[in-house]
């Protein structure tokens, strides 16, 4: 075993985040917990530097650390996206935390560690490193979810998340152990080679694949293991919900592509049908449940379940173009969902509506607050999947990949579900622009929210109109 400078520079974004997290803790200690704005600043700068380090790695392809880390387009693209998500979450959190009276400096180091875990996950080239990344991310999130200690909903959400998360991790780990028993190695490449040589499935292999699939289904919250996610999304502090419905989901999906799409591809015929049914049921469940919600936070939680269903279509399709499409859709989904949550958080600070997240709070805001109205409209159109947004192209690429590989039923199911989904997304726009404002429409307008909304809506339109650079990055490197 030997390590060179190339290895060190290859994982520079991760190293920067480690340093950032430690510095943030020290800064928080130095400020004696009175004021966390310095901690926030350190974290935001750390995310920017780490993002630049990630982007500077564009085009380098290979393996690092004696084959433990993939250095490819997926790694590069998602490192950059996670840094963006982390940065925006860090800058729009203080206003919300202040509004909710959560004054804890550890929020920012935990956010950093969670992003670090996500980066380790997407880069991992073996199951152990993936598991360590997953747990780094999850354990930080358990604390973030229950950070609002005085609120019993937050604590309850944290407990539910921890029990379900640890339970599913145990399944995942047992799957890894049985895979180790069958293959004799936990490297993705060794697993692929083993099954290429011998694509028959013994009982141990079936058990391993089933356990891994169960674990992943919990983590990406698809039917029948989706029940925890809505409760957790509702109970967690809203900024944490915005973060965890985007980054961790994207990270889990990238690993899902790497493990099931690539490593287990030689035996794909055994689980494709099952995964197709999971995809269809997830879409239908998410959309039908979202229709009857009166709470925007819960509506977005169910909508993110439905989007997990669309994303699974890309994994079922299972060729390189499909994975690139899924990668593009994941990026688009992360941006639009983060934006939608950021907008909803600020709407909910409207006078007299605190904490309820009712749809009524949106009434008549479109004309009173043009920036909020326009950006939330862009996010909703993108979530529906209408041009010229990134959400449209994401769905187009994923569904056309499904048709090309002969999964026409899945594509049709996806399209029908997108039509159902239109109803509840459009309701947001209708309420903003066509309902009469009730009472006071003043809402606080902190600068970070304006930056977040502008950056995200511009990015969604930009990669929606010029998708080429993103999609070619994903194709060149889709494993």
């Amino acid at each position, binding site marked *: 075993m030997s390590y060179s400078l190339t290895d060190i520079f290859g994982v520079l974004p991760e190293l920067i985040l480690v340093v950032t997290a430690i510095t943030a803790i020290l800064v928080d200690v130095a400020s004696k917990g009175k004021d966390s704005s310095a901690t926030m600043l350190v974290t935001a700068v750390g995310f920017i530097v780490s993002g630049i380090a990630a982007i500077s790695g564009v085009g380098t392809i290979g393996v690092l650390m004696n084959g433990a880390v993939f250095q490819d387009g997926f790694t590069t693209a998602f490192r950059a996206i996670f840094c963006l998500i982390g940065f925006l979450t860090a800058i729009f959190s203080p206003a919300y935390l202040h509004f909710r009276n959560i004054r804890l400096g550890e929020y920012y180091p935990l956010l950093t560690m969670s992003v670090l875990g996500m980066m380790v996950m997407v880069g991992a080239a073996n199951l152990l490193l993936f598991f360590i990344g997953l747990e780094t991310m999850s354990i930080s999130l358990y604390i973030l979810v229950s950070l609002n200690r005085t609120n019993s909903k937050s604590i309850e959400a944290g407990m539910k998340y921890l*029990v379900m998360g640890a339970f599913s991790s145990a399944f995942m780990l*047992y799957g890894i152990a049985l895979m*180790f028993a069958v293959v004799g190695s936990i490297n993705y490449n060794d697993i692929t080679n083993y099954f290429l040589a011998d694509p028959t499935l013994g009982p141990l292999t079936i058990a391993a694949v089933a356990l891994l699939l169960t674990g992943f289904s919990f983590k990406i919250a698809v039917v029948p293991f989706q029940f925890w996610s809505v409760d957790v999304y509702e109970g967690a502090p809203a900024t944490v919900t915005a973060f965890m419905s985007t980054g961790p989901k994207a990270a889990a999906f990238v690993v899902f592509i790497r493990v099931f799409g690539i490593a287990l591809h030689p035996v794909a015929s055994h689980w494709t049908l099952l995964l197709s049914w999971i995809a269809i049921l997830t879409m239908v469940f998410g959309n039908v449940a979202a229709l009857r919600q009166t709470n925007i936070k819960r509506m977005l939680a169910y909508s993110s379940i439905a989007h997990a269903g669309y994303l699974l279509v890309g994994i079922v399709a299972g060729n390189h173009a499909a994975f690139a499409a899924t990668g593009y859709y994941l990026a688009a989904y992360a941006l639009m969902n983060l934006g939608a949550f950021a907008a909803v958080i600020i709407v909910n600070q409207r006078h007299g509506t605190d904490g309820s997240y009712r749809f009524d709070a949106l009434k008549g805001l479109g004309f009173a607050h043009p920036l909020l109205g326009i950006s939330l409209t862009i996010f909703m159109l993108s979530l529906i999947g209408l041009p010229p947004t990134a959400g449209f192209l994401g769905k187009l690429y994923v569904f056309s990949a499904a048709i090309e590989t002969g999964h026409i039923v899945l594509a049709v199911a996806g399209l029908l579900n997108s039509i159902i989904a239109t109803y509840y997304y459009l309701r947001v726009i209708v309420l903003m622009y066509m309902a009469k404002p009730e009472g006071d429409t003043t809402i606080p307008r902190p600068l970070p929210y304006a930056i977040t909304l502008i950056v995200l809506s511009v990015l969604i339109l930009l990669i929606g109109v010029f998708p080429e650079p993103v999609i070619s990055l994903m194709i060149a490197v889709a494993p």
Partner: protein
Amino acid sequence: MQIELAHYLLLSAVLFGIGVMGVLTRKNLIVIMMSIELMLNAVNLTFIALARYSANIEGQVIVFFVLCIAAAEIAVGLAILIAIWRHRGMMSIDSLKQLKW
């Protein structure tokens, strides 16, 4: 009787099953966390047995990482449990009924 790899795998499968049943059927949150620990340790046993019988040291290395992760997870879990105790005065999952779909 010679003790083979299959015996160890069977034992850890049984332990894992007991853990799963514990999580699904028990009401006390501490017992649920103990059951999760049992599941993780059953997996550790699998790894050690595999490492021993296939002379592949990787399995033992994995166990160290899993032990660390399990400890971190349970530390956070107990902290949240104390917070729940302060709020609700009980440690049963029946106290987690505020959030419902």
